């Protein structure tokens, strides 16, 4: 098979599968925030990548502080919390100043948030410089597992995976097992009725948007463990994460997970056998073609239109 022995193919499968899994975790983390904002509220947030970068830069900044005060081994937990809080606050502000005026014009939110993303990119560039920066990683994140001689699994990938799992569970419990989530779902399903039974829908909108941004911040912080951070890094992932959300079916958490998994695995396996760009082209093409045949995505919520 392609000039490899069966043993090698097996190892390649494991390693590519794993790199697919860590891509899956990154995509899932990014898409979760977007699935809340786009799937639940119908707002196209083109600045989502930049909210991710808010988290990433927070983590980098915290790591600089940690080096100064010699807390490198424990700062990362705080970095994730700080990234969430900062991105949440900025998201809250953005919703208040910008998004809430545009709910009736979804295509215009797209343009306005694109403008916002430009402003944020330039802010990063002016304050942190145009060069890519990376966080000081604690020692327990470096290195790799070696179950057999040929298989090599990096620990930071495992960490991102665990984090993705935790955040996904958190989103699940918030959306489906808490009063807050109930309010969000009620507002999405029927805004007028929700407000008639006493839900403050404007406040729900603001918190939902801010929560989505906060999760983007967490994913950005996680992102620093596997890659360096530049002002435009976020914009590289924006189309991918939109594809994940749309492909999975906009309002479905399961769909988002499944499509992030499918896209990440397809991409990393195809990228091994073709060139990296052709693998990406093939994956995206497949998604676009499937979406053309099934516009509602993989896991459509059953609603009458």
């Amino acid at each position, binding site marked *: 098979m392609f000039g490899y022995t069966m043993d090698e193919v097996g190892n390649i499968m494991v390693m590519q599968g794993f790199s697919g899994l860590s891509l899956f975790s990154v995509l899932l983390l990014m898409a979760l925030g977007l699935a809340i904002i786009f799937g639940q509220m119908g707002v196209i947030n083109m600045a989502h990548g930049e909210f991710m970068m808010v988290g990433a830069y927070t983590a980098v900044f915290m790591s600089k502080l940690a080096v100064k005060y010699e807390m490198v081994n424990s700062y990362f937990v705080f970095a994730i919390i700080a990234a969430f809080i900062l991105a949440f606050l900025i998201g809250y502000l953005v919703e208040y100043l910008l998004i809430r005026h545009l709910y009736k014009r979804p295509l215009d939110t797209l343009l306005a948030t694109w403008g916002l993303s430009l402003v944020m990119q330039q802010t990063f560039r002016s304050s942190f410089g145009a060069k890519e920066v990376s966080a000081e990683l604690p020692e327990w994140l470096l290195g790799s597992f070696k179950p057999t001689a040929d298989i090599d699994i990096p620990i930071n990938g495992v960490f991102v995976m665990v984090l993705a799992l935790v955040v996904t569970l958190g989103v699940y419990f918030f959306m489906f097992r808490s009063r807050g989530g109930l309010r969000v779902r009620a507002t999405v399903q029927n805004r007028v009725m929700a407000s008639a039974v006493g839900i403050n829908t404007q406040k729900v909108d603001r918190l939902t948007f801010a929560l989505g941004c906060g999760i983007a911040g967490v994913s950005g912080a996680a992102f620093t463990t596997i890659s360096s951070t530049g002002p435009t890094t976020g914009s590289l992932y924006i189309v991918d994460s939109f594809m994940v959300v749309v492909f999975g079916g906009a309002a479905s958490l399961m769909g988002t997970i499944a499509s992030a998994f499918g896209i990440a695995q397809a991409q990393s396996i195809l990228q091994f056998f073709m060139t990296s760009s052709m693998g990406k082209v093939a994956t995206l093409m497949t998604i*676009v073609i499937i979406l053309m045949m099934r*516009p509602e995505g993989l896991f459509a919520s059953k609603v009458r239109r």
Partner: protein
Amino acid sequence: MKELSDKLLGGRQGAVGLAILALLLFVVFPLCLDLFRLGLLGKYVTYAFVAVSLVLLWGNGGILSLGQGMFFGLGGYCMAMFLKLEASDPVSTKIQTTPGIPDFMDWNQLTELPWFWLPFKSLPLTLVLVLVVPTLLAFIIGYAMFKRRVGGVYFAIITQAIALILSILIIGQQGYTGGVNGITDLKTMLGWDIRTDSAKYILYFVNAGLLIGCMLLARYILTSKFGMLLLAMRDKEERVRFSGYDVSNFKIFIFCVAAMMSGIGGAMFTLQVGFMSPSFVGIVPSIEMVIFAAVGGRMSLIGAVYGTLLVNFGRTMFSETFPELWLFLMGGLFIAVVMFFPDGLAGIYDKYARKFNIAGVTSKYVAKFSKKAAKMIGEKYE
């Protein structure tokens, strides 16, 4: 005859606006700007094709395509492939391992011209393909999406993804497309050197003429019954469908027209600027062009052209003096236009200028001025 001219020009108001624009493009700018600035302006005018196409598609049809850059790019690439083949004749490429093929193919160890380059050996065929390739792609995308009633936000995201695919494809297939550098070193068109000063003037005028032509066509479409339907579809799609019209066919048609216009713009871009690269195909240029149209006024053909020119001049000026500030300004502009002036410059003009009958007053001055200008041009070129 009267009816046709009304339809093309859009009544007195439209005619005056178009006349002022034509006067600026054909007389004022060529007289006032040096050749370098005029070249820049010509480049911006090619973007205006896309802005005009977006007025049709987005402002009047309510279909936001975030992939207009790919049609612009395809038109441009078609033209660039023809010019590149002419520039790499066997004599001037005899140092290559395989003379007669473009230099980047030689660097990538290709020994034969790929099949899809073959049609670009002939100019008439190239000119046809400049129109056909973007239109055909638009037809395929449009047919697949509109027949299944994909619209609005989903259409925007999917066209954006397709633009991304195309730009990755062009960058990845370096041997066939020139990769990230694009197709450069374009010299002549049927032996006519496109880099001389006189050629630059001629190309500028052809470009401006084509833009006015596209605007007339767009105006004709908008004032026809089809234009009414387009507006109706934007506002109440279901109602139009229930009245017995096939909405998807109209959408496909307008998407194809918009793609064709963008393609013409791209081809003119290649001719004037002398290269084509994937940086005009992907997500960023596509969305920037939407902004040009939004700044000028998404409902106004003339406004969109002014919007394009202003934003681009602003960009050039600011990135010369304060490169740091430009992105802030551009981002702020997007937000401000969307939030406070959804109808763009044209909306502001309508709101304030009409009160003072500016059109009437200017048309008088325009008539006076054009006589003077005609005299001046006569003197300059004698």
